[in-house]
């Protein structure tokens, strides 16, 4: 195995490992203890919900992989802020709307779509849409739309627990703010990693392969959720 190939393997293995570990741990339901806590809350609890939101985002590899895909080719910080804001607007809308409006969706279906959003973005990154269909769907619109699905996914996670009506809005806002805090933390890590990698020549050489691995990861996430839907719904 040549050095270049070894480097390639080294660069894509973590993504795959993350996906596998994540899949085995199953799609991030809150820990049993957290769940028991959430159900016992009757009234506003700003910081616990803030923490849970941030934890969900930092440990939610499906959201993280999607963000990696989105900012993979965004070199300007202005673009990063723009796209991440669109994603944030999208998922905040459906998170609040889903929980406050008590709109239920099957968590496996939503999570499967979230998995596919990772594959979609990776396919977009390798120029798949232009090449195969002649035109590329508006990337800003796509991020917004998938943001809506990601928010719906967050909402279904929170709705799995019988939440008290008392302090619901405060708690949901706290959870949402926590999600954004977690997103900023995660994004900082991803940006540091990407910026470092971009300074090397290996970045463009392995960009294609990395996005293909991202696609695999997205398909695995989606496949796992489809299995969950088939067996548990």
């Amino acid at each position, binding site marked *: 195995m040549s050095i270049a190939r070894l480097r390639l393997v080294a660069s894509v293995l973590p993504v795959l490992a993350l996906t596998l570990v994540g899949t085995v741990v199953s799609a991030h339901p809150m820990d049993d203890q957290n769940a028991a806590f959430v159900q016992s809350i009757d009234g506003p609890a700003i910081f616990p919900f803030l923490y849970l939101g941030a934890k969900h985002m930092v440990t939610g590899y499906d959201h993280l992989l999607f963000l990696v895909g989105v900012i993979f080719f965004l070199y300007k910080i202005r673009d990063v802020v723009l796209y991440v804001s669109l994603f944030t607007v999208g998922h905040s809308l459906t998170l609040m709307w889903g929980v406050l409006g008590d709109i239920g969706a099957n968590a496996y279906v939503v999570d499967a779509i979230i998995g596919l959003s990772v594959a979609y973005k990776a*396919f977009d990154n390798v120029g*798949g849409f232009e090449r195969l269909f002649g035109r590329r769907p508006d990337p800003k619109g796509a991020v917004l739309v998938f943001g809506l699905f990601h928010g719906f996914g967050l909402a279904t996670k929170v709705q799995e627990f019988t939440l008290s009506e008392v302090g619901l809005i405060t708690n949901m806002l706290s959870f949402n703010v926590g999600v954004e805090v977690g997103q900023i933390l995660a994004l900082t890590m991803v940006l540091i990693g990407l910026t470092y990698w971009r300074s090397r020549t290996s970045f463009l050489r392995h960009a*294609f392969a990395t996005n293909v691995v991202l696609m695999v990861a997205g*398909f695995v996430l989606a496949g*796992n959720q489809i*299995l969950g839907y088939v067996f548990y719904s």
Partner: protein
Amino acid sequence: MTPTTDRPSTKSLALATVGALLVAALIVFGAVLPAEYGLDPLGTGRVLGLLALSQVQPITMADSEYRTDVVDLELAPTEWVESSYRFEEGAGMVYSWKATGEVSYNFHSAPDGAPVGYAESYDAQVSDRADGAYTAPFTGTHGWYWENVGTEYITIQLTTAGFYTSAHEGRSRASGERRLRDARGQPLR
């Protein structure tokens, strides 16, 4: 803005996409399905030992002897009583108690070797009944404190069944007063 600088050919793109789907299917059917759902269509679960991951083990064998106790505890107004049990870590019991009136109670436990007065509290309320299952998080003394906060005589009937090694009813302390504190140093209510 083009996403990639070196744009792949249609052939390599199609290959990569189909390949990604195939690898994903291989992972899902070869690893996730046997490990998470106990199904092994490709036989990889048996070969790699992944099938064992999906086997839920609902039984915990007990080391200590099984015992059941039914006790009636009488409490005059303002009187209190403790029912404590010795549990090894991981041993459990199911319990059910009913009182003829509302009592203030607290289920707590103290690990062996903890400082005097230290206890962790799991359930503290005012109620006339509670039913549940308890698994000891550590080896030590575990049990209830009940206090009659009303003005009438109250009888509590308590049924416990499980793998505790001793049961003890306590109504007084050497110090003559109760100074239990939880992990945060707050007095137990």
